[in-house]
Structures are given as C-alpha cells and as structure tokens.
C-alpha cells in the first residue's frame, strides 16, 4: 500500500472538530503521499481542510476538540499510535512547520538569535555549538549579516526576514518533512518569490520534503512537483503538476485553473466559480462539488464518485468518464 519512497502516507484520514455549532467534518477520508525530496502542494479554497490535514500530521490540535480516524504513516510508523511525548520528540526534529503570519509566530519578547538557539538546545545541542549553528542557519536562509541580526527582536524585522527566521528555526534540526502552511500569503509578491526560491534551494540542498499548503495555483505551478486539490474535506484530484495543468480531469480543478488571472486578457471578465462550498457540519452524500459543477447530473448527488487513475501519477474523483 505504501511504497518505500514515501516519507509520509496518509490513508483515509478523517478529522472532525468540535465547534459551538456541532461537529465540523473538516477532513473526510483523504489519501495523500509525500515522497522523499518532493514538494507536494495541497491546494484548495479557505476552509477546505488543508490546514487541518497539516496540523493532524503534527497533532497540533487539542485532543479535547479533535476526533480523528484513519492512519498517518511516517516512514512506515503509524503516527496515531504514538504517545504525546513521542510526537513531541518528532516535532522539530523529523517534521516541522512554518506558518502563514511570521509577524506573530515568533515570541515578541526574545531576540531571534535567542529563539533560534533555544530550538537547538531544546533538542540537546550544546550552548556553544548552538550559537555557531544559529549563525550558519541564518546565513543559509539569507538573513544578513547574521551576527548583528541575531540580537534583533521580531518587531525590528520585516515580514520577509521573519519568515526566513521561521524557516531557519524549522529546519534547524534537519527535519525530513517541512510543512509550509501558506508561508507567503502575508508577504508581498517580490518577497514571496524570494521565499519560494529559498524553499526550493533548501529542498535541493537537504533532500527535504515539503508539504506546501496554499490557495494559490501560481505557487503550485512554480515550485511543486506534485499537487493534491482539496475540496470540502476531500481530495478531488492529485498527481504530477504538469499533467494536471495540461489535462485537468476534475471540473473543480479546471475551474480553479481557469480562474487564475492571466496577462493579455484585458477587458474580459475573470472566470469565477459560482456558489459557495458546502456546510461542513452536514453529511455530504454524493459528490461535494455537484451543486457548483457544470457537468453535474443525477448520479452525482447519489453516491460519492469513485477515485479513478488515468496514469500512475494522476488520479481524480469524478463520475465523468475519460
């Protein structure tokens, strides 16, 4: 079921979260594999379960509010069978994460050098060595000059610089998987490109896998090797990025690709998808996308569409035949 080249394999993951209005079925049985050394994109609109999936890998949710089912295999080990203490040992050293808003993701009271060294000493690195490695890490992520930047506080740095520091902290213990949860959403476009470039370089240099969570198909096209398109808690299509851009099979994917703004289309209306995503509090019987789908027919509302594979590296879930 899982191949040796898979760093992380998610099988039939289901996550429900308690909310004031009841149980939100945020992730509804998804399969996802991230191979060693690849950048895997997870793309979808707000509230489709991208972040929930990412956080379940690291078990960052309070167990009081989260119910989950299925399996997450990390290098063959079932993550759900690990104790909280074991998960904590994995965080940072095997899997780490960077967040959407770097301005608030660092503790405002400590210098960035202190925080970076602290992540290292927390994993058992000696103080002297941690200081040297912190300088090296800052250099690696392009925070220059590292010696003087080390003594700055988060409020003294720009968002792009802080995201670099966050990346330095996340990779400080050489994790095998870096989860990037919309790492460039709060940054402006030029800085965005720099950060994406940095992530690609780090992947190449350290043979690290990256799970890139984004709502931006442009980012997927730019840096991802493979992509999974999520809609309403399920994966509707996944596979090689080039194949999917050339030949999107699921109507949602093709609608999304159509709605990317392009140059040379002045005067024409930007393509949009009518309607809104379904309420995740309710059960969905048929295809979740059916109410917004151009091709929807009676069958779509009856049963969930079975996953189809058109090649080894491309599968989708829609009843429309090939």
């Amino acid at each position, binding site marked *: 079921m899982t191949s040796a080249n898979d760093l992380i394999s998610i099988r039939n993951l289901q996550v429900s979260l308690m909310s004031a209005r009841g149980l939100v079925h945020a992730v509804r049985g998804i399969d996802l594999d991230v191979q060693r050394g690849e950048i895997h994109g997870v793309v979808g609109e707000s509230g489709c379960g991208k972040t929930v999936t990412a956080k379940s890998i690291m078990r960052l949710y309070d167990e009081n509010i989260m119910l989950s089912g299925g399996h997450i295999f990390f290098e063959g080990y079932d993550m759900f069978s690990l104790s909280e203490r074991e998960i904590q*040992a994995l965080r940072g050293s095997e899997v780490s994460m960077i967040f959407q808003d770097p301005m608030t993701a660092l503790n405002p009271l400590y210098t960035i050098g202190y925080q970076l060294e602290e992540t290292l000493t927390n994993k058992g690195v000696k103080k002297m060595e941690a200081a040297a490695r912190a300088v090296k890490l800052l250099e690696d992520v392009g925070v220059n000059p590292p010696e003087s930047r080390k003594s700055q506080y988060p409020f003294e740095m720009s968002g792009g610089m802080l995201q670099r520091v966050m990346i330095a902290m996340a990779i400080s*213990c050489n994790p095998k998987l870096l989860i990037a949860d919309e790492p460039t959403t709060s940054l402006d476009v030029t800085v965005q490109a720099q950060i994406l470039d940095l992530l690609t370089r780090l992947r190449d240099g350290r043979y690290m896998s990256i799970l890139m969570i984004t709502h931006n198909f442009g980012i997927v096209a730019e840096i991802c090797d493979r992509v999974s398109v999520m809609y309403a808690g399920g994966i509707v299509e996944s596979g090689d990025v080039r194949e999917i851009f050339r030949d999107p099979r699921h109507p949602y994917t093709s609608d999304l690709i159509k709605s990317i703004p392009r140059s040379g289309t002045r005067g024409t209306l930007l393509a949009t998808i009518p309607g809104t995503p379904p309420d995740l509090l309710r059960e969905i019987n048929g295809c979740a996308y059916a109410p917004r789908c151009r091709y929807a027919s009676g069958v779509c509302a009856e049963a969930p569409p079975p996953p189809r594979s058109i090649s080894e590296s491309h599968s989708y879930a829609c009843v429309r035949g090939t």
Partner: protein
Amino acid sequence: MPLAVSLLFLVGVIIIAVFAEKLATHDPNRLDVTHRLDAPSHEHPLGTDKTGRDIYSRLLHGSRITILSAFGVVLISALIGIPLGIAAGYFGGLADKVFMRMFDVILAFPSLLLAFVFVAAFGRGITNAVLALGIVYVPMLARLTRSLVLVEKNKAYVEAARSIGYSNAHIMMAEILPNCVDTLAVQMTLDIGYAVLDLASMSFLGLGVQPPTPDWGAMLEDGWIVMTSNPFVALAPGTMIVMTVVALNIFGDGVRSYLDPAQKKLPSIRKYRRPVRDLRK
C-alpha cells in the same frame, strides 16, 4: 524620571527599615502619658499617639514589619496563584473548571472574613495573618493569570513553539509566562497596597500584629479615631502607605516597559553625541 523618583523612594524606605534604630529619636514602645496626642514639636517631629509614643520613631520601626509582611502576602499568593492560573488556562478541561469554581466560592466571601477563619483555626500572630491573607489573595491572581494565558495561548507563537517540539512546561514557563509578566507585575504591586491595609485591619482586631509592635497599618487604625482632633496620628502612617504603594506601582510599570523590547530598545542618546562632536571639529 518618575521611575527614578520611585526607585529612590523605595530604596529610602528599605534604608529606613534597616537602620530604624539609628534613625529613631525615641524608643518606639515607650509610653509617656504626660504627652498624649501631642501636636508635632521639636521633641516629637510628628507628634505622639494616644499613649504618648513618638510617632516618628514608630513609623521608622513599623516600616520593617509592614513591608516584610505585605511582601510576604503577595509572594505567597504569587507562588501559588500564578502556577495554578497558568496550568488552568493552558490545559483547560476538568481541572480548570474545578479550580475556578473553587476560587469562585473563595471570592464569594469577603477576603478578611476568610483570613479571620484561618487565624481562628491556626492561632493569631503575624505569621499566620500573612499566611492567611496570602492564601486568600490566591484566587484573584490565579484568575488574572488564567485570563492572560487564555489570550496568549491562542497566539501563533505558541503554536509555532509546539510545532518545533517544545514541552508543555517549557511553553508555559518560558513562552507564555514572560508575555503575561507585565500585567501581573502591575497587579502584584497593587496587591502589596491592599495587603498593607488588610493586615492593618487584622491587626486592629488583634489578629495580626500584636501590640505594642509598631506597624503602619495598625498605626493608621489607631489614628483614624482621632482623625479630626489629631490628624497627624493617622496621616503619618497613611501618607507612608500611599507613597509606598504609588512608588511600587510606578516601579511595576517601569518593570513592565523594561520587559517590552519595543520600548527597551529605544536608542540611547549617547549614540547621537559622537557625530555632533565630529561636526564641531
């Protein structure tokens, strides 16, 4: 500037407490019935109380027990209340609910009444009074800490700290607590003021400081009965209490801004001196 003045005052109070014997002009406990309730004079700079004791000398000696016991009360409440509040706020769940309802019950009674019960059970004396008030002050500090933690724990840096593999203990003590210290410091300096007054009430009822030991709170309680005829008896200790509390507050506020890196890192004026000199050359 206000910080420097308050610091100077607090250092002054500590010096007074340490060198009370040297600075006092009279034995603080010597009765002199021929000079009851004297107005301030050369002999008695702040007058005498209802048994003819020199108020100035009593004020100096009283600073010791007042300051020590008030600090003791706040220290006890902080040592118990802050960790409880952090744990309750951070973990939530059943333990949080149980502790908070318990604190609600404690808060439902007037704090002094509870302290009386404690003293009645364990015996009178200043040590027990301090312990009792310390415990009675726990719920207020614990609730404040809890509410601060509830705000902080949902901030992104806490999630980032979890994602990097920090333990809960580390996150609570090294990440969240330092971000709450500013508010807690201000509350604790306020609590010192309350403690001085509550200890005074207990002393007045004979449950705290035992006569004739001098204590600002006890002196204030003694004095307000003759407030209209001999205001100095109450004004002298009252002024000291107010000034000490205000100084502590300003000091607490100073600590707060010192802890905030955005305020601490303002460039020193020294940085700008050198280029000015260079221009003159």
